[in-house]
């Protein structure tokens, strides 16, 4: 890692925050949550929404790029939304984060074998393949997905979709 990229990584951890909210599973709730960020010009980097074990509620996990002081204000305002039941910030050291990536890679250049080695190394899966392309999936830490993506660039990424991270607190945190 170069000095610049280390600094960038440090900045990354400082500014990126993972917020987990339990909300009522109702129409329009995501728009209310997203609206609070949009109004301030904050970008949502990653977003994952799905019902919880209790289908009356959904969990929204999102990562935002914002200074801590502004974040505190937004979190308080999110908490004021009537449909938001619970809200917490997850620190990376006290939580488990996972993200899923689907990616189609160009293998026309005869590097199929090399790609399959990479798939093994990362414990990814091959979901589909033809003469010229392979579709892979990887579920892992978001950082691990970044690394995988970096390696795949050498092959040629045709299409890529990430789900956005989901997270739960670590058991002993």
């Amino acid at each position, binding site marked *: 890692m170069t000095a610049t990229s280390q600094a960038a990584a440090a900045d990354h951890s400082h500014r990126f925050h993972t917020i987990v909210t339990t*909300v*009522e599973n109702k*129409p*329009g709730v995501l*728009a*209310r949550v997203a*609206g609070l960020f949009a*109004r301030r010009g904050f970008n949502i980097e990653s977003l994952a929404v799905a019902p919880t074990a209790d289908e*009356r*509620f959904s969990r929204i996990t999102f990562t935002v790029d914002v200074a801590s002081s502004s974040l*505190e*204000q937004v979190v*308080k*305002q999110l*908490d*004021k*939304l*009537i*449909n*938001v*039941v*619970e809200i917490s910030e997850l620190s990376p050291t006290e939580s488990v984060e996972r993200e899923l990536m689907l990616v189609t890679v160009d293998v026309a250049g005869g590097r199929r074998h090399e790609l399959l080695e990479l798939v093994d190394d990362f414990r990814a899966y091959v979901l589909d393949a033809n003469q010229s392309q392979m579709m892979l999936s990887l579920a892992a830490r978001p950082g691990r997905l970044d690394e995988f993506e970096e390696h795949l660039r050498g092959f040629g990424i045709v299409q890529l979709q990430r789900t956005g991270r989901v997270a739960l607190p670590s058991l002993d945190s």
Partner: protein
Amino acid sequence: MDMNGGQALVKALECEGVEVVFGLPGGAILPVYDPIIESTIRHILVRHEQGAGHMAEGYAHATGRPGVAMITSGPGATNGVTPLCDAYMDSIPLVCITGQVPYAAIGTDAFQECDTTGITMAVTKHNFLVTEAQDIPRIIHEAFHIATTGRPGPVLVDIPKDIVDPRNPRSAMTWYEPTDDIMELPGYRPATAGDPELVRAAAELICKAERPVLYAGGGILKARAAAELLALAELIDVPVVTTLMARGCFPDSHELCLGMPGMHGNYTAVTAMQSSDLLIALGARFDDRVTGRLDGFAPDAKVIHVDIDAAELGKVRNPDVAIRGDCKLVIAELVEALKACGGLEAQPDRRAWRSQISGWQERHPLVYEQSEPGELLKPQYVLEVLRDSTPDDTIVTSGVGQHQMWASQYWRFDHPYTWINSGGLGTMGFSVPAAIGAKVGMPDRMVWAVDGDGCFQMTAQELVTASMERIPIKVALFNNAYLGMVRQWQEMFYEERYSEVYLSHEIPDYVKWAEAMGCVALRVEAPEEVAPAINKANEIDDRPVVLEFRSAAEENVYPMVPAGQSNSDIVVDPSQR
């Protein structure tokens, strides 16, 4: 009992104790207007939906009960956005019912369709799109609960036409009693009492402070905590400033009252806060119009901040003690904690602070020069005469601008809920409809709308509503032929380059206009005519009255903290410089 959604809606409003609805019917809300005929609810037919919203605000502010507006879809709803935002900024409990196109037509660009819940999401405490007639009683109850508890605010309920139209099978429902236990609000937990440890910490800070100031905001009125504030101030003998939203929450004639702080606050209120070593902020939000340039605001003060809304704590100024809670309960707790610490005897000797404050009061009272014969009226003089010619408990509403600042400065508010204005949003045109709403809610009280000529032209048509409904408000209209506050800024900060601020003394002819709307109207041009005109207006109780005061355009509001400057750079009246 089987009924249709429209009947259920009206019955649900009756169950909430609604006595009056301000509204205007239209296509999508039509089915609800049929059961209104049989209802006990009084409906006031406005001339513009914005008027309905501001009337509901005036009603809510004066009575403490939620105001209700009912308007149709599309343009009706968009006309209601300004009062919703106004109520949101000033924490006014409001329930706004909007018609919507039939559920199946939503999203098809149907006639008079707009995305009402989408548009109002950012200007309401919460909003609902009701999709089933069966949900109406529960959602109406939830709407009133949310509007009136915690930090109050506007709630909008959007009702598609099909679920209230008796000719549509989707409107069929079975009535049930809307009670608290049927509410489904798992994420709504309004704050109540304060954390006792934090209250003790606050009491300890107070017992050490040499130059404390009680900074009372609109939250005192929302919490109905005026009596608690008085008890606290008297117990520790600490001066009180009352913000624009809090005027009247502490009596102006009380010796501890310093009046209004902020951009056009009086010198003593502003300077006492600047020099303070402890600000006790109660239901106040450190608005930019109060703090001036933030890094220069009350630089030596520690801060105790009490607010029911956690998002206010630390939003602008980091507090030393932050207490989330209802002001009424927290102040009562604080009084007990201070008594336990020894009450007044435990307070430091603050004679030096008190004498410093009285020095400022003596050197920098509010001043203006009376007009010379033949000159136009001084608005400050008119307001003093109006104040002295009306009962103590008169309700005063105001628009936004110079007249608003003078009214707040020169009135003597000795009772809570006697001052109603648009503080946060600064909505021109607020005064006349707000006065109508206040008078409907408090029919035995005298209600005066103080207004400017710019504001009056925005919502004056509601005087037709007042005439038709026999709501005898009185309007003191200051006609200085200008958008006065903007003119003042152009004079002071744009080298007297007056751009698009001239309105005219003569057009419109306010007397003829007011008479055309069914009001009694008088034009007043000389100081000796002021008191007789007001006395005549006070005697009229069967229709609205408009007094047009021809006033001096060059009169500026002082003191003034220019925008973006520190409160220490307060500009006083030229005669005191």
